[in-house]
């Protein structure tokens, strides 16, 4: 299995898409360093990129890769290996190559300009988001045989989690603004990996936003060891569950 992963991984690393992605991240990070001298501000601007671009690139690249590897996967299925092994190899290869592109693209400029603790969280968050959205994209890829439909579903996941879901949360907050909503919103946030990642970063970077009673509530929650454990395990579940469902479907799927 490891050699299969390694070869697929090496193959993906050479695709133009991944090179572009790495280059794009490198360029934007360097550009931010040129434009601004304040470290916190750079990390915050990068956070926006991470929250938008990382999930988008992850879903698009993963679905395209899955369908362009379709025949290869088919050939692999004719070999004496377990289906699960092939599928997980694909997942791990795609996820690790995207993570690597991200770590290089964002990490290297920070190492060059000497990084702080916030950056480590930013890197960890980005890796988590990559894992989650690669996982979701694999799910959408096995849900349909049609490439464009699969990309559509994957983009819908992305659009839903980066925009529609927040609109829904805002609507709830607005409608029930007379009630204490701290715990409700906390639960709602857990159902969106992008929000979860964003809140974790806000607690480290933009503490001034978390003012008032509500801010203190979230700060106490996410700042505690329990909160860190909670948020990271929820993110972990977000990566595990879709790929598990996808694996189940793939196991029974006709190729």
């Amino acid at each position, binding site marked *: 299995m490891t*050699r*299969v992963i390694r*070869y*697929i991984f*090496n*193959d*993906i*690393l*050479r*695709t133009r898409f991944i090179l572009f992605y790495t280059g794009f991240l490198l360029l934007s990070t360097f550009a931010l360093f040129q434009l601004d001298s304040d470290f916190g501000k750079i990390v915050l601007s990068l956070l926006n990129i991470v929250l938008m671009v990382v999930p988008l690139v992850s879903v698009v690249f993963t679905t395209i890769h899955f369908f*362009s*590897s*379709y*025949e*290869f996967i*088919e*050939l692999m*299925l*004719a*070999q*004496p*290996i*377990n*289906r699960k092994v092939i599928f997980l190899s694909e997942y791990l290869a795609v996820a690790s190559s995207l993570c690597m592109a991200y770590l290089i693209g964002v990490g290297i400029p920070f190492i060059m300009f000497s990084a702080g603790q916030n950056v480590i969280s930013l890197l960890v968050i980005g890796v988590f988001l990559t894992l989650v959205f690669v996982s979701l994209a694999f799910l959408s890829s096995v849900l349909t045989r049609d490439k464009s439909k699969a990309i559509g579903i994957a983009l819908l996941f992305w659009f839903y989690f980066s925009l529609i879901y927040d609109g829904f949360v805002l609507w709830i907050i607005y409608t029930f603004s007379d009630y204490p909503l701290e715990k409700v919103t906390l639960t709602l946030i857990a159902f969106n990996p992008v929000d979860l990642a964003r809140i974790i970063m806000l607690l480290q970077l933009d503490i001034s936003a978390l003012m008032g009673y509500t801010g203190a509530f979230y700060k106490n929650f996410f700042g505690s060891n329990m909160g860190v454990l909670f948020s990271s395990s929820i993110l972990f579940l977000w990566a595990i569950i879709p790929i598990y469902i996808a694996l189940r479907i793939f196991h*029974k*799927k*006709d*190729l």
Partner: protein
Amino acid sequence: MILINELCKKFGKLTVLDQVNLNLSAGKSYALVGPNGSGKTTLIKSVLGTVRPSSGLIQFNGKDIANEWKYREQIGYMPQIGRYPENMRIGELIDMMKNIRKEVKTVDEELIDDFKLYKIYDKRMHTLSGGTRQKVSASLAFLFHAPVLILDEPTAGLDPVSVEILKEKILHERRVGKLIIITSHILSDLDELSTEMVYIFEGKVQYNNSIEALKEETHETRLNKAVTTLIKQKELLNSITEHL
């Protein structure tokens, strides 16, 4: 060696394979013939396990293949379209395949030698022509001395010299007693390579006998003529049953 019993496969409402019964035995070479969309590829994929049957049974050496993968060690498969990870080198691909079947100690690199692939081991897949990719696919199928060979349109896209090399190889493998399943539109090729004829139409096995028998039945000497006659007979029969 491969026993197919009452195999059905449906994609939604569409029935692709309808109660297929076949007994494929070692030492024979089967030509799998039928028009486009008749279910040939689905049948092959069912045997390979990439398509899950709706009902019915496939046994390999007396063992049900459902949810099994180990039996595929016995199969060498050459797909119709060989598409590989674009940036993988030929050498890497062959190395990876060898790694999957580690237990095979001595590999059969005859085709690699004959196709002179070792010269281009460093080339990446996306730089290869369709024909070269076919050569790679063929080499991979024969690499592990598998007792069963499934070849999907093996000669399509190959240059005449390579076609002859491949044919020689297939004939050689047949002679050493392997079970060979070939689909092809080039019936003259099948005439040389196959001993048995399986004709599939609309998901059903319409004919299953030796090519010799077919030729006798249709009073033809060449397989392509024989098959055309067979098809005409079937069509005539169908239109009569429809009118009744």
